[in-house]
């Protein structure tokens, strides 16, 4: 061993030793540099970095309290919230990105390439939304395979749910992401980009009641943004619950009856204008809007020629046809143009100037009085008396019964049209011709009416002249169950016409259903007296289509609209109904049996209530007082 030292290795030289010492000094200097840096970071700037690490650790997470629920008048659930599951991915945590994306693309049915590129461009440390609202099955699969796919996680957010799907969709409405324009307006009221708010129907009009309060909770998060624990919670303040005036069973029944038609059914409580059912067909499924509607679905809805999103009940404007004879009746009797028992002779023709106006019935109805003119819907009776009344007086009575202006029920409501000389001059720069008055007299001219106006008209006839503003929201309860708001019926006006005249008109309408020659005998119920009126509104002048064509031979838009309005029981009205079949191509009497079915369904269901209230109001004429206690149930 010793030989090595002597033979091959000379002892360390002084120069070498000196250099080693220099090394030591250099090393020490550099380590001192690190010491200075540590002093600077930890002692001098320590407090700043402590704050930064707290900022890292604590995240403020937005919490959206659940939206209030919507119920029908009997507490049946119409809209609530469900948990939806969203898949997120934090790229930083993923072991095998390609394999993970392949799996996710497969289970969410997205193209692999696109998803891969989207993911690759995302911030690797922040969770990236792969797909919102996945199915429970997909969720279960992911939960089961969680350990194999690190970086993938599922988060829960509440979404709106409408258990009755397509039913009552127009009145419930739907949710949608807040638009930029809405955000401008709502910024101060706690709305943020990406928030959902009601965009239609009750969801929209009652947004301020329904929306739950949002706020921030403080949570401890890890670097991947995962919540580990709540440092300071946010106490949820859910939205208020809304009870509608709707009777969902009745609504359902109406929806099912009307399944194959387009148009609308409106059912009112004539005693206060509460809406018991409101159907608009075709309808849509509001659930597809809940998590943001897919472009494909939206396009389909927008391009559908039947416009399923349109609420025909309040926005559809149609010629009233013969249901306008109800208004005409009031005008004729109140203006004393004809005595109720005075008969005119109907030959089926009314020559006026160079034109001949025909009755719907060839050969006419013979001698006919007021009641029978309604019962048989005699056109000639109204041609003659309408001509005597003149357009201005007709317009006056139409407006009196709420036509020509929205009922005030909803913001998007249309007003219909009450033609007059002034209107025509404004619209066509042309004077009114008397021949046009004759068409208007049978609801055929320029006049337009919405289904809700028609329903309100028949309800007003039923209750003896109280034109109520139709309403849908019965009451609003806060989450604690206290009443925040309760609807009071609002009277638009009391019709200034004597009860005797109402009685005569009602009798005419009763004869429509129960009379020997009534046009709606199909609507007769064995045990309940009912009053109604049919209407068939032509969409174009007969000149252009000729008379004898079958509806199937005509393009849809040229087919007749069919009306039926009714109330029951005759003595003590509890339900008023208006049915419109849009371009149904049928006589109004076609829908009379629908009304019969709905009325008997509702009255049987409410037998006790109606009997009880009939003792107090039966036979008594209603007073002119705006707040009649007896007429509200």
């Amino acid at each position, binding site marked *: 061993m010793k030989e090595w030292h002597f033979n091959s*290795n000379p002892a*360390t030289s002084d120069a070498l030793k000196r250099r080693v010492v220099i*090394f*030591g000094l250099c090393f020490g200097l550099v380590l001192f540099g*690190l010491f200075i840096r*540590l002093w600077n*970071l930890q002692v001098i700037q*320590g407090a700043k970095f402590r704050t930064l690490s707290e900022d890292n*650790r604590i995240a403020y997470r937005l919490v959206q309290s659940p939206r209030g629920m919507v119920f029908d008048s009997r507490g049946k659930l119409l809209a609530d919230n469900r948990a939806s599951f969203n898949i997120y991915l934090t790229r930083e945590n993923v072991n095998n990105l390609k394999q993970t994306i392949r799996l996710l693309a497969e289970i969410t049915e997205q193209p692999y390439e696109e998803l891969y590129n989207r993911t690759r461009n995302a911030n*690797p440390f922040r969770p990236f939304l792969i797909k919102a609202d996945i199915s429970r099955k997909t969720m279960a699969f992911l939960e089961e395979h969680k350990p194999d796919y690190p970086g993938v996680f599922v988060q829960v957010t509440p979404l709106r749910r409408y258990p009755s799907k397509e039913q009552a969709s127009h009145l419930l409405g739907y949710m949608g992401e807040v638009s930029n324009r809405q955000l401008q307006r709502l910024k101060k009221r706690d709305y943020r980009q990406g928030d959902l708010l009601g965009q239609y129907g009750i969801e929209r009009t009652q947004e301020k009641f329904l929306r739950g309060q949002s706020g921030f909770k403080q949570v401890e998060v890890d670097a991947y943004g995962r919540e580990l624990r709540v440092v300071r919670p946010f106490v949820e303040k859910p939205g208020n619950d809304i009870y509608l005036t709707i009777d969902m069973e009745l609504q359902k029944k109406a929806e099912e009856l009307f399944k194959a038609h387009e148009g609308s059914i409106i059912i009112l409580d004539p005693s206060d204008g509460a809406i018991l059912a409101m159907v608009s067909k075709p309808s849509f499924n509001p659930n597809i809007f809940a998590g943001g509607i897919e472009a494909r679905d939206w396009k389909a809805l927008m391009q559908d020629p039947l416009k399923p999103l349109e609420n025909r009940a309040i926005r559809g404007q149609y010629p009233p046809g013969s249901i306008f004879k109800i208004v005409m009746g009031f005008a004729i009797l109140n203006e004393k143009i004809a005595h109720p028992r005075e008969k005119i002779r109907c030959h089926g023709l009314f020559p006026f100037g160079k034109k001949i106006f025909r009755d719907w019935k060839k050969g006419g109805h013979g001698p006919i009085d007021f009641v029978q003119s309604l019962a048989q819907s005699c056109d000639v009776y109204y041609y003659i008396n309408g001509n005597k009344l003149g357009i201005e007086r007709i317009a006056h009575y139409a407006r009196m019964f709420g036509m020509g202006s929205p009922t005030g029920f909803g913001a998007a409501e249309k007003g219909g049209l009450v033609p007059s000389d002034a209107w025509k001059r404004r619209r066509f720069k042309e004077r009114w011709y008397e021949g046009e008055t004759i068409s208007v007299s049978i609801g055929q001219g320029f006049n337009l009416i919405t289904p809700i106006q028609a329903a309100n008209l028949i309800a007003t006839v039923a209750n003896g002249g109280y034109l109520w503003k139709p309403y849908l929201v019965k009451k609003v309860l806060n989450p604690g169950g206290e009443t925040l708001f309760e609807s009071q019926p609002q009277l638009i006006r009391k019709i200034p016409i004597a009860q005797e005249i109402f009685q005569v008109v009602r009798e005419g309408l009763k004869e429509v259903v129960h009379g020997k020659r009534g046009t709606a005998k199909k609507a007769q119920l064995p045990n309940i007296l009912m009053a109604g009126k049919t209407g068939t509104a032509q969409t174009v002048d007969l000149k252009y289509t000729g008379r004898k064509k079958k509806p199937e031979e005509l393009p849809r838009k040229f087919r007749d609209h069919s009306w039926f309005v009714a109330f029951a029981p005759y003595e003590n009205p509890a339900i008023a109904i208006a049915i419109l079949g849009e371009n149904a191509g049928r006589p109004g009497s076609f829908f009379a049996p629908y009304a019969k079915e709905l009325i008997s369904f509702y009255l049987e269901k409410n037998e006790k209530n109606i009997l009880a209230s009939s003792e107090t109001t039966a036979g008594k004429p209603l007073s002119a007082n705006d707040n009649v206690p007896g007429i509200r149930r």
Partner: protein
Amino acid sequence: MDWLLVLATLLLSLTGIFMIYSAIHSNPVFLKNSLHLKQALWSSIGLCILLFILFFDYHIFTRWAYFFYAIVIVLLIVVLFTGQVVYGAKRWLVFGPLRLQPSELARLAVILVLARYFGSRGEEEPIGFKELIPAFALAIAPVLLIVRQPDLGTGFTVFLIAGAMVLAVGVKRRVILAIGCLAIASAPLGWFFLKEYQRRRILTLFNPDADPLGAGYQSLQSIIAVGSGEIWGKGLLQGTQSRLHFLPEKHTDFIFSVLSEELGFIGSITVLALFFIFILRCLSAALNAADKEGTLLAVGITTAFFLYIIFNIGMTLGLMPIVGIPLPLVSYGGSASISSFIAIALVLNVGMRRKSLTLAFG
């Protein structure tokens, strides 16, 4: 035997085991695998190897230096073809349950081979170009192979170690000047050869806030971790930066950030002081070595430790670009731990054999 060096080594290893536990306790997978206990096992094995090596004179190792060097070169070539890919680099050789990082051995091989090369050189005269070229060739071969893996950090350190040993031997002034000029001239060229992510890391060093969620994220989060420890630290297991995974690679490359966050300024300067003592004792072994070979061996090893320490700590303090260099004795890692213990054993060996020399003279 230098008991102070041994004590510093043991204290640093113990600190490492504790900090590794703290770094992994929030990660259920790592915790289940008991990485801290594995590290304790590696350290114990390292300690045994250390004791074993002390029985032999370090000259045995320098005598076999060229042979060892050749084996390492072969391993480095093999790893390029069959190595296991981790984080996009081929660094590991797998033999059944054992995994070996040849670049760890390469460092030792270059130190040994250069100590042998310069140690056998008798004259006092500084090195000229002629002598430098074979030394350069010996150093650059493994460096290039390591850079190809790619493991730029390790390659660069090995190159610096070789340079330091050459400086220790003594170089002619004109050689230093020429190399200096060459280095400055080739720096832009080197930039050209760097990969995009490597450039970004270097640029981030000068402006870590430019892209706080991208390249600068790790650096920034590490600085926040260190700084937020303040004077006394957040307490063991209490580091939020660490526990909540804001720190990357926290049980390996960023173990010092965890330590600084949880034990504060007091803790971090204690560890720094332990490293300072460690370095000083190693250099003292070099000073007192029996021969030039021993001095150079100790100087090379000390430089290696020193570079690893400042690169790693510099990285966690945002002073160096982020390169995958562990903190010796403290970071988790079997290959690294065992090679550290072997290196320490060689230094202790150099320190011990001095006595035999004085005895021989006496």
